């Protein structure tokens, strides 16, 4: 188990330039694909946010959450969902979409999940820039608490890579994995307290389960940095749950990666 984890970590860290290049050119190719290029990276999330705001904010008239305007409150959590969600769906396809590469040369397959995440990270940073412009409009000015976002972003990256490591290998064994993941994404969005506040759930017990959700930990962390300023320690139970789940995913993912590293080509 530890051997495979060391193997995966080593392969990733010795191939940083490879990861960077793949992500860079993949982004470039994506942008060249359409006439408006980078514009869609912004337009897509904006349209989604407006939809949710229309349904929940206007039609259902969600009031401010903890004194924070609903649209801002939602944006604060939604922004990281826009990072994690494509990481999960594309990460699942990380190996399969690179078949042309792995069948043609000796290639360190375990770097592929990281390339997907790095590519999405660029889009995320673009969105964060927009947020930094939008939030002052609601009276939320950047302050030193916002620096905590770097920690939560790191969490999101590690979690996404660990999860993709597992799903991408499973997807090679059976292509159904991707279909399952795609089907579960919408469910995950509504089950994670992103569009609604966790305290609206009547049962304390259910709330505890919700708080163990690693994605909720990250979402809550982002919101804490933007609005609540309670600090890392306020969520220590979620934090422990998050790192345990992430570690298990990473251990299992790298074990699979290590075991199948030469077998992928025969699974096509």
């Amino acid at each position, binding site marked *: 188990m530890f051997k495979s984890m060391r193997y995966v970590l080593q392969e990733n860290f010795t*191939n940083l*330039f*490879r990861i*960077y*290049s*793949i992500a860079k*050119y993949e982004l*470039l*190719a*994506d942008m*060249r*694909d359409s006439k408006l290029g980078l514009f869609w990276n912004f337009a897509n999330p904006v349209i989604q946010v407006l939809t949710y705001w229309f349904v929940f904010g206007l039609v259902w008239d969600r009031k401010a959450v903890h004194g924070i305007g609903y649209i801002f409150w939602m944006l604060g959590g939604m922004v990281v969902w826009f990072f994690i969600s494509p990481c999960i769906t594309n990460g699942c396809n990380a190996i399969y979409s690179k078949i*042309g*590469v*792995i*069948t*043609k*040369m*000796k*290639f*360190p397959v375990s770097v592929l999940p990281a390339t997907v995440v790095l590519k999405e990270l660029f889009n995320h940073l673009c969105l964060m820039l927009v947020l930094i412009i939008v939030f002052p409009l609601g009276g939320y000015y950047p302050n030193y608490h916002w620096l905590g976002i770097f920690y939560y972003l790191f969490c999101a990256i590690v979690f996404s890579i660990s999860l993709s490591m597992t799903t991408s290998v499973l997807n090679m*064994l*059976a292509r159904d994995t991707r279909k399952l993941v795609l089907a579960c994404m919408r469910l995950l969005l509504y089950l994670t307290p992103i569009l609604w506040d966790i305290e609206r759930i009547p049962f304390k017990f259910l709330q505890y389960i919700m708080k163990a959700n690693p994605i909720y930990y990250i979402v809550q962390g982002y919101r804490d940095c933007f609005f609540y300023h309670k600090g890392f320690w306020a969520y220590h139970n979620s934090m422990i749950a998050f790192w345990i789940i992430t570690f298990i995913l990473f251990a299992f993912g790298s074990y699979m990666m290590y*075991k*199948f590293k*030469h*077998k992928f*080509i*025969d699974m096509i």
Partner: protein
Amino acid sequence: MNEEYAIEFRHVSKIYSLKSKDKKHNEDKRFYALKDINFKIKRGEVVGVLGTNGSGKSTMSVILAGISEVDEGEMIVNGEQALIAINLGLNNQLTGEENIELKGALLGLTKKQIQNIKSQVIEFSEIGDFLYQPVKKYSSGMKSRLGFSINLALNPEIFIVDEALSVGDKGFAQKCLDKMTELKDEGKTIVFISHSLQQVRDFCDTALWIEGGMLKDYGDVETICDQYAEYVDYYNRLSNEEKRRERDEKFDRRLLPKEDKGFFKKLFNH
């Protein structure tokens, strides 16, 4: 480990599983793509690999390149090997230059090494001003020339060339052949997988003939080529009925008893 040899195959077998025609009886057959292959290739030798379609040449090339692993036996390689194939995934949206950089990075070169090979690739592939055009605007000849040139610039110790010299027009093919001859003089080991008997005769020292997944013969290029040509002639003279019988016979010799491998078995006992 004997340093005198570049590549050594010891009882190498590669097995693929086949889906059965009848879906109700889930009896997946297993099939030898390569069966019990033994040979040694000396350092600096140029070997041509001959064989009819479906005899296992491509499987051989991916195994030699270290991309696929053998199922039985072992392969010993002394030195860095690289597969040179015509069909490499260039990204259609990117320009020629960006493709060189991407491909270089994929192959594991550093930034500096990529800068070094760039001029070499540009010169060899003869794409000129098309370098700054997206690859989707290239002719198919240009694409394969670019891909081939990037691979050539890698300069490993052992080359595995898979049908690559059918790239582009006569002029470029000649240029490739010249380049290969240059590499040969430098003492590189080259495994040359080709359909063209003439190219193998001209270029290789020895030849290796695989038929039906098994090693038929390995030795001096002229002798093997003559035998191979004779076999192809013999096969072509057969009537359709006889051809089919021969094919079936070959196929049956490559079959293995079935083995049940479900999803979870695949997961846990590889």
